[in-house]
């Protein structure tokens, strides 16, 4: 935050201030500067001891990330088999972000909202692979009873408020979720995730200002995976240093290496703590998506080399080698986890297969809470 930022409670009279200067300063126009500070969470800079994480917690993080990875690999395969339709946006490569966040929250009392690339955070928060896969299959056993699909994972129980398809449209909603936490005094906070591309939407500006103005318990988190569809950040933004967007709203900003789950976890802990004090903040997480934007993306906008280089930073492999290097685990143990996760995902596919299609009459359910809402009568106009 700017050193010279006054507390907004005090009305400012800068026009007077400006004129005062003239006495000191006959020579004008006058160049003035102010300093802005932000925090960097660099990859590899954090040890589990320093963060007070036990071996079991690290293994839990490993399993948590791996479940997201395997779930989506399988989903991609099922998409190929046309078990899944519409858009399928894979989170593969970004799992350290969702897992690092989930471990910093009180799941159940805290809240999370994100965009359409939402399988990862859903599973990280504890949504089951079953309800997730069944939703992708469009079955009644899905988390949204088959009405939402890939872009619309919701779990009231786990505090996941979606899963949203309109870029930027959910950011003010996240601020409103935080508003309710503060209003109710329930101690909850809301993590509001958005992509780098969503920074193009005015809704960010409005939401960030409201968060800062009302001192809401929210962390606005930009998952900067370098691209919005085929557009690299520097082609869409006059200045792609998103962390600079905190200052004008009095939000403390951080830049985080999103390929290191420990760095993400630490950053989330710090920002969640700020939020619990009703200090809203901004986080830019630098991450990368290994797959295309959705299933039909030629990926001409990036080189093989760039992609391969990023794969060397794979957050899952990275945590695994950390575990081995620090003799916290061995291959047998991690293989066992791999097997467990694989089973879980296969079981989810079977569950999804066997879950029935939503009965046709459910098309009129879940719109209004009112039981007897009189939908436009198509008895005569369209013959059912």
């Amino acid at each position, binding site marked *: 935050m700017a050193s010279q930022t006054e507390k907004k409670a005090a009305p400012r009279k800068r026009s007077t201030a400006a004129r005062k200067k003239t006495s000191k300063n006959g020579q004008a126009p006058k160049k003035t500067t102010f300093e802005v500070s932000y925090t960097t969470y660099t990859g590899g800079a954090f040890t589990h001891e320093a963060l007070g994480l036990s071996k079991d917690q690290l293994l839990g993080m490993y399993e948590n990330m791996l479940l997201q990875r395997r779930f989506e690999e399988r989903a991609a395969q099922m998409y190929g088999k046309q078990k899944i339709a519409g858009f399928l946006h894979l989170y593969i490569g970004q799992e350290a972000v969702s897992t690092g966040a989930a471990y910093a929250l009180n799941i159940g009392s805290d*809240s999370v*909202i994100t965009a359409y690339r939402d399988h990862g955070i859903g599973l990280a928060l504890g949504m089951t692979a079953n309800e997730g896969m069944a939703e992708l299959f469009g079955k009644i056993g*899905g*988390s*949204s*009873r*088959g*009405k*939402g699909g890939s872009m*619309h994972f*919701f*779990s*009231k129980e786990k505090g996941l*408020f*979606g*899963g*949203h398809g*309109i870029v930027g*449209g*959910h*950011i*003010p*909603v*996240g*601020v*409103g*979720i*935080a*508003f*309710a*936490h503060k*209003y*109710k005094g329930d101690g909850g906070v*809301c993590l509001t995730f958005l992509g780098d591309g969503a920074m193009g939407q*005015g*809704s960010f500006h*409005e*939401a960030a*200002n*409201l968060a800062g*103005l*009302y001192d809401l318990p929210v962390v606005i988190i930009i998952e900067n995976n370098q691209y919005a569809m085929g557009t690299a950040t520097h082609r869409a933004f006059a200045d792609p240093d998103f962390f600079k967007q905190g200052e004008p709203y009095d939000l403390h900003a951080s830049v985080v290496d999103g390929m290191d789950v420990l760095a993400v976890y630490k950053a989330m802990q710090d920002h969640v703590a700020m939020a619990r004090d009703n200090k809203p903040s901004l986080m830019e997480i630098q991450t990368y998506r290994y797959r295309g934007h959705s299933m039909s993306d030629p990926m001409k906008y990036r080189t093989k080399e760039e992609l391969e280089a990023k794969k060397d930073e794979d957050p899952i492999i990275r945590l695994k080698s950390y575990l081995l290097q620090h003799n916290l685990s061995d291959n047998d143990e991690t293989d066992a986890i791999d097997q467990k996760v694989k089973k879980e995902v296969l079981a989810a596919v079977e569950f999804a297969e066997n879950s029935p299609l939503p009965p046709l009459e459910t098309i009129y*359910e*879940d*719109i*209004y*809470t*009112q039981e007897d*809402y*009189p*939908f*436009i*009568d198509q008895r*005569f*106009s369209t013959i059912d």
Partner: protein
Amino acid sequence: MAELQFREAIRAAMVEEMERDESIFLIGEEVAEYNGAYKVSEGMLDQFGAKRVIDTPISENGFAGLGIGAAMNGLRPIVEFMTFNFSFVAIDQIINNAAKIRYMSGGQFSFPIVFRGPNGAAGQLAATHNTSTEAIYAYFPGLKVVSPSNPDDAKGLLKAAIRDDDPVLFLESELMYGMKGEVSDAEDYVIPIGQARIAREGDDVTIIAHSKSYWLALKAADMLAEDGYHAEVIDPRTIRPLDMDTILTSIKKTNRCVIIDESNPYGGIAAEMAFRIQDQAFDYLDAPVMRVTAKDVPAPYAKNLIEHYMPSAEAAYKAAKKVMYVN
């Protein structure tokens, strides 16, 4: 029966509900310290404090979305748009979030939120400040749309809207805020959403009109009465869902219908009502359903032009005689 201004009736509804339920709050531009751009929320900041009566920046998309998020997380927001002309920068929040998230989440979340404020023509304010939004919002399943014509309905329907667990757009009118009317002082006065009101009985022609247009309908009915014709006047009060039973019953009696609506004509609610009437009472109609609307142009500033732009009682009177095939 107390006599209240329209704005007082709306305020009374909000105050009574907020006294009843801590989870209700009012948010919008100038609603708190300024006491409301049209003084609807006068005194509410003093009574409920800054926690529950909240001024916002000029960020309709932002604070509409904030309200939606708050509703998802257990509160019952009343979001005031200074006018619904300014809801267009927030329409994505209303139609894609408030209206659809419940569905997309398989019913996990509900949206007990009211979006209220003045709607429609408001005099010499030119094209951007005279938009009627009824048809645009009513198009979207997931929303309810209410638009009362008098203080009594305003109070009873707003209380119902605030208690409703689904998103309700409550459309008022700058030009009616000062209008006085008897308002029931029944203990807990709630008028159910979705019920039309037969304001005047008659068997020669049915005139349907809501909000400001309702008063044109009464005037037209008087003019017809002088000619010896008995018009039945129906105020739908709720735009979505429409109370078709009441409307159809009337038309099966009168066999004729004129709809007054100050919206622009294309796809306005008059078209929807007419569609359903001819669809469901075809054999009862002795004449086409006619609509008396604003002209198919943007609203002009000049006094004579805006008057020419608006529907009139005179036009409704003539339309009624047309459908009765008399002159």
